[in-house]
């Protein structure tokens, strides 16, 4: 059940919102919130099961094991506490590795495999990357005494919460668990949350099914049908993908945050107009913010602590290592490793540049360099192999055919750009580079007639696009 599917929008979400709200009212002040939470837990498990029922035991197993370890950590002190944390980390990372990385590493070094050894064919459980990170953060936070171990009921609700269980945003327990009493609508603010949720949902839906899918048409044409790209075309098609992934993922995030808001829960924001960034550091403060927070707190800081002194060199090495691991987290492929490595090097370079105050670039040039860097990194991210990535990046440089537009013309002749899709592309470019982020819009939301008209228009246009044969799956579902 996709967030942009009819069953989710017209059945599942309204039903859960109405049920939790009703149960909260009927069950009264004391039992109401817990009853609403129970509905949300059941709904989340149903939502997860909808995809592949066979994956549910993995999620439940992860919840049970981590809940138990957290309880043990909470009840112990000293070395035993540390050992329990280490056990928890090994189990979680091992769980992730078994499903995601064993085949990748064994397949990358075939000479290490005995001749008749068959690689196990594991299909990785949906959302494993996201909920495993959530569990790791939870265990570390318990170990650091940032929060007490929760009940199994709370822990299960927190981990399996349907707005983020599949593709994030990566939620930190201490941000969510204190809100469990708000399921079914925060008292006194129920309508406000619901209205803001509806508003943000319409924005997210429009971003995903209208803008992202329009860019997906162009990007897919560039990848699958275009031949012998000119320099201009290589930039156009790569930027189309860069915009597609932004609108796709940020649209998904808006839908997730909006769904949670409708249930009375605020989950962390994930994007803040990243393509307006003027440095790589700023980009990561605006792009996939919940992942950046995880990398900073749970990867970069521990790595840096391993150095005797926190020097600039140590910080740079820690950054590169942390980002490479984050790259690998996206999936078992050398292209993801390279994507992470490239951003790690970019961030380290940016840190050195900033600390040493080498030279302050003009704002427009900073933006251009940053966006070009991000765009090239996304080519690696999108490519199937490193050789493919190298070939596609090579096309960006004016080596042979610079201004050719044969592929763009052919694409137009196939009717991909004309008519209705041209406008979403134009809107997308304006919104990505000049517009406010959904977070800003949601924060500034007021129940006015103009906003009502905007929601109606966005929803109806999204409805038309949802009915049309141009939908693409969410990019981050692959992770």
């Amino acid at each position, binding site marked *: 059940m996709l967030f942009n599917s*009819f069953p989710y929008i017209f059945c599942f979400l309204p039903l859960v919102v109405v049920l939790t709200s009703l149960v909260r009212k009927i069950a009264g002040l004391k039992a109401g919130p817990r009853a609403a939470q129970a509905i949300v837990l059941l709904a989340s498990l149903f939502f997860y099961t909808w995809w592949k029922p066979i994956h549910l035991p993995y999620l439940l197993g992860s919840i049970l094991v981590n809940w138990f370890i957290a309880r043990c950590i909470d009840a112990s002190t000293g070395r035993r506490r540390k050992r329990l944390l280490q056990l928890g980390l090994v189990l979680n990372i091992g769980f992730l590795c078994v499903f995601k990385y064993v085949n990748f590493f064994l397949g990358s070094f075939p000479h290490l495999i005995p001749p008749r050894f068959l690689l196990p064919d594991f299909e990785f459980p949906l959302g494993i990357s996201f909920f495993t990170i959530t569990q790791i953060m939870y265990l570390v936070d318990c170990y650091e005494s940032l929060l007490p171990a929760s009940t199994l009921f709370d822990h299960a609700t927190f981990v399996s919460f349907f707005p983020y269980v599949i593709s994030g945003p990566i939620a930190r327990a201490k941000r969510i668990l204190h809100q469990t009493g708000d399921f079914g609508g925060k008292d006194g603010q129920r*309508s*406000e949350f*619901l*209205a803001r949720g*509806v508003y943000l949902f319409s924005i997210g839906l429009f971003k995903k099914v209208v803008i992202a899918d329009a860019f997906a*048409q162009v990007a897919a044409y560039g990848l699958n049908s275009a031949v012998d790209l000119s320099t201009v075309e290589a930039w156009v098609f790569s930027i189309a993908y860069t915009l597609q992934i932004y609108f796709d993922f940020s649209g998904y995030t808006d839908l997730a945050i909006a769904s949670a808001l409708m249930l009375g829960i605020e989950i962390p924001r994930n994007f803040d107009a990243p393509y307006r960034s003027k440095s790589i550091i700023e980009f990561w403060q605006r792009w996939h913010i919940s992942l950046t927070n995880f990398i900073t707190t749970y990867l970069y800081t521990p790595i840096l602590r391993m150095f005797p002194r926190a020097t600039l060199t140590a910080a740079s090495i820690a950054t590169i290592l942390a980002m490479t691991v984050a790259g690998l987290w996206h999936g078992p492929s050398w292209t993801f490793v390279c994507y992470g490595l490239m951003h790690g090097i970019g961030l380290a370079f940016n840190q050195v540049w900033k600390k040493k105050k080498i030279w302050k670039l003009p704002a427009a040039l900073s933006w251009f360099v940053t966006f070009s860097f991000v765009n090239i990194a996304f080519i690696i991210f999108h490519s199937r192999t490193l050789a493919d990535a190298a070939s596609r990046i090579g096309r960006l440089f004016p080596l042979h055919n610079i201004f050719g537009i044969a592929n763009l013309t052919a694409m137009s002749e*196939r*009717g*991909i750009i*004309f*008519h*209705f*899709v041209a406008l979403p592309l134009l809107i997308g470019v304006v919104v990505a580079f000049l517009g406010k982020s959904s977070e800003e819009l949601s924060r500034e939301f007021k*129940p*006015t*007639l103009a*906003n*009502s*008209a905007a*929601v*109606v228009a966005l*929803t*109806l246009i999204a*409805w*038309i*696009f*949802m*009915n*049309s*044969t*141009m*939908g693409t799956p969410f990019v981050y579902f692959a992770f």
Partner: protein
Amino acid sequence: MNSRRWLLITLLSIAALVGVNLLLSYELDVYGIMRDPRGRKLATSSFYLPMTDDRVFKYMLNQRYVPSNFDGVLIGSSSSGNWDTDLIHGFHIYNESLVGGSASEEKILVDQLPQTAHFRIAICALSPFIVSKHDLKHGLGQLTRREAFGSLNSFGEETAKVLADLRHQQNTFFPNGSRVFPNEGTIKRDDHEELGTHYFDIDMQAMADYRSLIRTLQAHGAEIIYVAPPIYLPIHGDLTQFDRSLERIQTQLPPGPLINFTDPEYTAFNTDSSNFSDGLHVNSQGATKISKILNEKLHLLLGGSEFSP
């Protein structure tokens, strides 16, 4: 305005506008799937819609309109796209040919026919092109009936229908599925045409799909007649590769009579440049002629059988 009131206004407005859209879709019913399509004449003037051309239209029409109004189909690619099936007397044949269409795409169209559909005849064009690849263009593999309830394509069709009704626009497709090619010219004798290195390759998936669609049509009661489309000889004079390809294709399909428009008896037609827009496509004039010849040949072929019109 408070949030509660805002929510009420917003949700009711959405519901009302969706309702209006559904009513409009029902009233215009451009694909003939909401109301009884018997006796209606559905055609499209949309050629290049955002994501598709004739594919969505024929996909949707096969669900109710075609089985309700026709007792035969013509399967093919663009080389038979403009053949006028109204000139084939005694049958009501719907032209399922798609521009750039493969057997795999034609199979998807045929798969939309309801179990109860009954046909007397299916004319299947045998050109190397139709079995040379199996890719599905413009999202044909992901289509659903939701297209009919307010989509880019259905709005395009609805606009086209209104414009055609107001006589502001002419249909490029006719109610029998045949079409006119926009800006078609007439070929010149010294024109040159490259078919590409893989033109005569047979794609196994496309071939399997062609077999499967023919069996499906037979299950719907259709007598299968194969047709090899005409070829402009001054350009593609040496037919050795075409003949070899035709033979290979035919051996892999269920048996059936063949009307071969590349046979010597059609040399006069195949050397007359006024019949062709390029080496493999007849123009409007050629399409009319070839449809009439097909009519005669079919009657000769089926004259003595139970399919006699």
